[in-house]
């Protein structure tokens, strides 16, 4: 237990209490994130109820294959970050570094695909603003609104991922310096919670944006 005492802050009775405090703090933060994205989902829901046909038409202009592949990639990154926590729990420094690196790899791949999708949308004149063009039967205003939701919601999601990648990279540096062991790996665990949350947001974004009507 000697390594634990070097990480124990004075206000805590023991390491377990310190870890519990960290976990509760992270979940409190994630609750604010649920409401942050939740507000956008609510707005999306109102306009989808008002313009169902337009929403369906616009959704079909998103690349189903890329969206599905990206969802699988992000789920895989959640697996690898969970394995990183497991490696920390079992005292495997190499396992921690390896799995955190894989998580960054998959996360970066997701963002790469997203960047391509954004470029393609720009090319198709589906970016809201002066360049927007709409050639379906459904009205253009609501269509532009759908793409506003698309870019803002996936944009904020991507921003969260970029921040996550930065934190993951910092964790790798710390892991390689031997900062974590089976007694103390709280930063790895908390980052994992954040990363899983970002994954959950996408799990809801994917069907709501990409799969409105694919019959």
């Amino acid at each position, binding site marked *: 237990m000697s390594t634990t005492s070097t990480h124990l802050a004075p206000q805590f009775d023991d*390491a*377990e209490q310190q*870890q*519990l405090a960290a*976990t*509760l703090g992270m*979940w409190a933060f*994630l*609750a*604010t*994130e*649920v*409401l942050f994205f*939740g*507000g956008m989902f*609510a707005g999306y*829901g*109102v306009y989808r*109820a*008002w*313009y*169902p*046909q*337009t929403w369906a038409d616009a959704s079909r202009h998103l690349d*189903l294959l890329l969206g*599905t592949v990206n*969802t*699988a990639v992000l*789920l*895989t990154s*959640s*697996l690898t*970050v*969970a*394995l990183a*926590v*497991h490696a920390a*729990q*079992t005292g495997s420094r190499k396992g921690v570094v390896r799995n955190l690196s894989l998580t960054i790899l998959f996360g970066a791949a997701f963002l790469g695909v997203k960047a391509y999708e954004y470029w393609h949308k720009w090319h198709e004149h589906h970016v809201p603003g002066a360049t927007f063009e709409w050639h379906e039967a*459904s*009205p253009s*205003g*609501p269509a532009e609104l759908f793409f506003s939701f698309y870019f803002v919601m996936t944009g904020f999601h991507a921003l969260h991922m970029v921040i996550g990648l930065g934190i993951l990279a910092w964790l790798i540096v710390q892991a390689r310096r031997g900062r974590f062991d*089976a*007694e103390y790996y709280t930063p790895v*665990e908390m980052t*994992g*919670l954040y990363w*899983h949350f970002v*994954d*959950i947001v996408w*799990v*809801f974004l*994917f*069907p*709501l944006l990409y*799969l409105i*009507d*694919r*019959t």
Partner: protein
Amino acid sequence: MSRHVISRTAYFVVFGLLLVLLAATVLVAMIPLGDWSVAVALSIAALKAALIILYFMHVRHSPELVQVFSVAGFVWLALLFVFLFSDYLTRYDVTPLTG
């Protein structure tokens, strides 16, 4: 720290389930279910989220206080949706553009 360790195998099983549910999400979207399509899609997404929260995020084996905190955000979200949609979806004076 005497903490419950979830096995690597368990993680891979959950991951496999998540991929199966992803396939189901896409396939179900191709079936004409009318108004039920959204409900089914969101139900599958909720199932995925539950698996991620319970296993990947360790909530299944966490202290009860952590479990309460993990649910809290979604409780407030439910309130947001219930109040918002009970307003917007019961308005008769709004006539949006068709479609």
